[in-house]
C-alpha cells in the first residue's frame, strides 16, 4: 500500500491561495488517477491572520483513507515551504519518516539552506526552487496591498482569481511532482494556470540528494 502525506507551510492570507492551490491540485490529480485523496486546510488554529504560519494538508493513497477525520498530517512525507524564511521558524519536520522531501521557495541553494533545517537527516532530498523569480519576481512586493484586500479571512471564498496556481504555486507544484512523483505530470499540468512558470521550474530545480537515516 502506498500512502503519502504532503504538508504545505504558508503565510496566512497573503499566500493562502498559493498553499491551497498546491494541495487542491495534487489531490484532484490523484483522484483523476483513480487514487484516494484528500486535501484540507488546518482547521484548529484559526489560520486566517495575515502572515501567520498556516498549514495545508494533502493525503494520497492506493487504499481508502481511514484517518480522513484527523486534523493534521502526523507523518508528512513531503513538506513545502511556500515562503523561504519559514525554514528557520518552526519544527515543520516533526513526524517525517526517513526518506522525505523538503521543497523550499528560495533563491538560495540547498547547500546553504540545509543548515537551517531541523532534523535534516530524515531527508532523501532537499529541493530549492526560486518560485518568486519564475512566476514573476514582482508578484508579492507589488501586489501585496491588492492581495491583502482581495483575500481577507474568507478561507478562499471571496477571492476574485479563480484560476489554479497563477503565481508562485506553479513552480512549487512542478518541484513537488517532478521530485516525488506523487501524481503524474501529465495529469496535473492541464490544471495549472501559469504554464510558463511551471515548465521553467522543471529545468530550474536545485536538488540535493541525501542519505536518510531513521531517528
Amino acid at each position: 500500500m502506498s500512502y503519502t502525506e504532503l504538508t504545505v507551510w504558508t503565510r496566512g492570507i497573503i499566500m493562502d491561495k498559493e498553499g491551497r492551490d498546491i494541495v487542491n491540485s495534487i489531490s484532484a490529480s490523484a483522484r483523476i488517477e483513480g487514487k484516494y485523496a484528500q486535501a484540507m486546510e488546518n482547521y484548529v488554529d484559526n489560520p486566517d491572520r495575515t502572515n501567520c504560519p498556516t498549514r495545508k494538508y494533502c493525503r494520497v493513497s492506493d487504499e481508502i483513507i481511514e484517518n480522513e477525520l484527523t486534523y493534521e498530517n502526523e507523518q508528512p512525507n513531503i513538506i513545502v515551504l511556500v515562503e523561504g524564511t519559514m525554514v528557520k521558524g518552526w519544527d515543520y519536520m516533526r513526524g517525517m519518516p526517513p526518506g522525505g522531501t523538503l521543497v523550499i521557495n528560495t533563491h538560495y541553494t540547498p547547500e546553504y539552506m540545509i543548515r537551517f533545517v531541523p532534523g535534516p537527516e530524515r531527508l532523501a532530498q532537499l529541493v530549492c526552487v526560486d518560485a518568486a523569480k519564475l512566476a514573476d519576481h514582482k508578484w508579492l512586493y507589488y501586489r501585496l496591498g491588492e492581495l491583502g484586500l482581495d483575500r481577507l479571512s474568507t478561507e478562499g471564498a471571496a477571492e476574485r482569481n479563480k484560476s489554479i496556481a497563477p503565481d508562485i504555486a506553479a513552480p512549487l507544484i512542478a518541484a513537488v511532482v517532478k521530485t516525488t512523483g506523487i501524481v503524474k505530470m501529465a495529469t496535473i499540468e492541464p490544471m495549472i494556470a501559469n504554464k510558463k512558470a511551471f515548465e521553467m521550474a522543471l529545468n530550474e530545480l536545485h536538488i540535493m540528494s541525501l542519505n536518510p537515516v531513521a531517528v
Partner: protein
Amino acid sequence: MAMLADVKKRTVRINGCVASAQAAKYADVDVIAAYPIRPYTATMMALAQMVANGELDAEYIVADSEHSQLSIAHGAASSGARVFTGSSGVGVQFAYELYSPISGSRMPVQMMIADRTLDPPGDFGSEHTDALSTRDMGWIMGWSCDAQEAFDNHLIAYRIGEDPRVLLPQMVCQDGFFVSHITGDVELPDTGQVKEFLPPYKHPYPLDPRHPVSHGPQIMPEQGPPLQLERARAMEESMAVIEEVHDEFAKIFGRRYDPWVEEFMTDDADVVFFMQGAHAVTARFAIQHMRDRGLKVGLVRLRTIRPYPTDRVKDVLSKFKAVGVIETNMGIGGVSSGGVLYAEVVAALYESQKRPLVLSFMAGMGGEAIVLKEFYWMTEKMLDAQKRGKIEKRTHWVGFEE
C-alpha cells in the same frame, strides 16, 4: 416521475458546508438570514456567492447577531417565505430565546448547525452540545455523517417541516470539521427531481395585510396548555410523516436512509456503539478491523434525535449484550455524569424485557478526532462488561483511563 436512468446526475467534490449551501440553493429558499461564526461561516459565504452570481434568487440578510438572525428568520417565515439560516457553537446559544417562539408559532424555519464546542475556551472543534442544548425546544433535529447525507438531510427536513401535518422548524446538524470541512463526493440532483420532491412552500396562515391574522399574541395562562399540547402532538405525529418522506426521497433520488437509525454489522453483534454524527465514519473502519479479529461488534447510528424514536431504539438495542454510547456532548451533573445521550438510551430501554448493559463514553470532546485505537479501547470495555455481566462504571472518559 422521471425514470432514474433518465436523470442527469452530477457528482461534485465539496465539503459539508458547501453541501448545505447547495441544498439551500436547490430548495430555492426565499430568505437567508446570516451571521458569521466558524465553521458555519463557510456555508453563508457560499450562499453569498450564489446570490451575487445570480445562481440563487433570495433575500440575503446579514444580521447584527445570532439573536437578530433568528428573529429575521422568524419574521420572514411568518410572512410565508422559505427560510434558511445557520450557526455554530456559542452562536447557537446566543439565539436561544427564539427557538421556542419559532416552533411555537409553527414556522418551518430551517437552521443548519455545524457543531462547535461551547466556550470556554475558544475551540473550533465539534461537540454536539450546542445543538443538543436546544433539543426540547420543538425543533426536528438530526445529524448527518458526511457531505452527501448533509445535502440530502436539508431537502428531507424542508419537506418534513413544511408538511401541513407537521409545520415545525428543523435543525439539520453536521459535525464541524469532520463533515463541514472534509470534502466528499456529493451527487447533486436534477432540479426536476427536487421540484418533484419539494413543492413550493405555502404556509396556511402567513402574515398578509389583505387577510389579517394574529401571530404570537399575549395569552392567558389557561390558553397555554392547548398550545403546548398541539406543539407536542405535531412533533409526535411528525414521525409518520418522517417515514413517508424518507420513502419518497428514496423513490425520487435513489438513496435510501433509515429515518431513525443506521445499523452497521449488527446482525450477530454482541456489543454495539450508539452514536450520532461523523465519528461513525471512523467507527465503521474500526469495526471492520475488529471483525477481522473475531470480535462481534457493530454500530447503531442515530439519525434523528427529535422526534426521538423511543420504540425503535428499544427494539434495536434490546438485541445486544452491551451498548456503548459515544456522547460527543456535555451533560454535566446529569444521570451518568457524562453526556445527555446516555439518558435517552437508558430511558428507551427501561420498558424492554431484555435490557443490555449500557456504558457512556465521553469521547471526541472539544472536537478531538476519535481514532481507531480509541474505538478498540471502548470495545474492550464493552466486552469486559459483557463477560462480567455488569458494568465497571457508567461513564468512561476516553483517553483519561487505562
